[in-house]
């Protein structure tokens, strides 16, 4: 299984990505996916994402490999956007293909939990003129901890 991992400024089309994932092998019966979006609550005007090029890709690759050891995966796609995004914009796609649904769901959640707590991305929120870095959430650490 060769995962598709992309860090990009551009948006993505979920249908295209899932089709590429599912069409790779005829025994794909289940594709679980997650799309994260910019929430517009609290007067947010934009969200800016920066990352650590090189380390980001390496971390994601490592976690996809780990997922592949834990579940019988037939494909995985991780796309994470960087740059400045608006409320409602897609931020991230994680999609996992397997023969059956439980493996696909579990691996997808596993990858999202690790993206949240290990992949070197940082979010800055802009509200009108005010700008603030997003603080990490303890609940994300707990979510990642359950896979240990």
């Amino acid at each position, binding site marked *: 299984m060769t995962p598709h991992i992309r860090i990009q400024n551009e948006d993505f089309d979920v249908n295209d990505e899932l089709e590429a994932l599912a069409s790779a092998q005829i025994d794909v019966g289940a594709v679980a996916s997650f799309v994260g979006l910019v929430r517009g609550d609290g007067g947010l005007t934009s969200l800016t994402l920066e990352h650590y090029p090189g*380390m980001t890709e390496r971390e994601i690759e490592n976690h996809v490999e780990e997922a592949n050891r834990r579940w019988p995966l037939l494909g995985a796609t991780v796309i994470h956007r960087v740059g400045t995004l608006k409320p409602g914009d897609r931020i991230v796609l994680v999609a996992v293909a397997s023969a059956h649904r439980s493996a696909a769901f579990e691996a997808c959640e596993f990858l999202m939990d690790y993206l*949240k707590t290990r992949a070197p991305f*940082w979010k800055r929120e802009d509200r009108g003129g005010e700008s603030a870095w997003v*603080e990490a959430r303890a609940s994300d650490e707990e979510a990642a901890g359950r896979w240990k």
Partner: protein
Amino acid sequence: MTLLYFAWVRQKVGVAEETMNLPPGVTTLKDLIAHLEQRGGGYAEAFGNPQRLRAAVNQEHAGFDAAIADKDEIAFFPPVTGG
């Protein structure tokens, strides 16, 4: 060694990247953090409260006890908030 700074760490120190020679007596990340704090100004702000910081050595997450060498790429950043 190469030092990289991200998010508010970068904003406080004022540069995204710099190179320096391993200072005498510095063998771990903890030593390096103390050394950088002593530069004062934005460095003191960024490195004065290490529990708010995370680090990577050669693009892998590392605890502050990690040994470092002059050829390393070392990054300092806040806890990550992607996804």
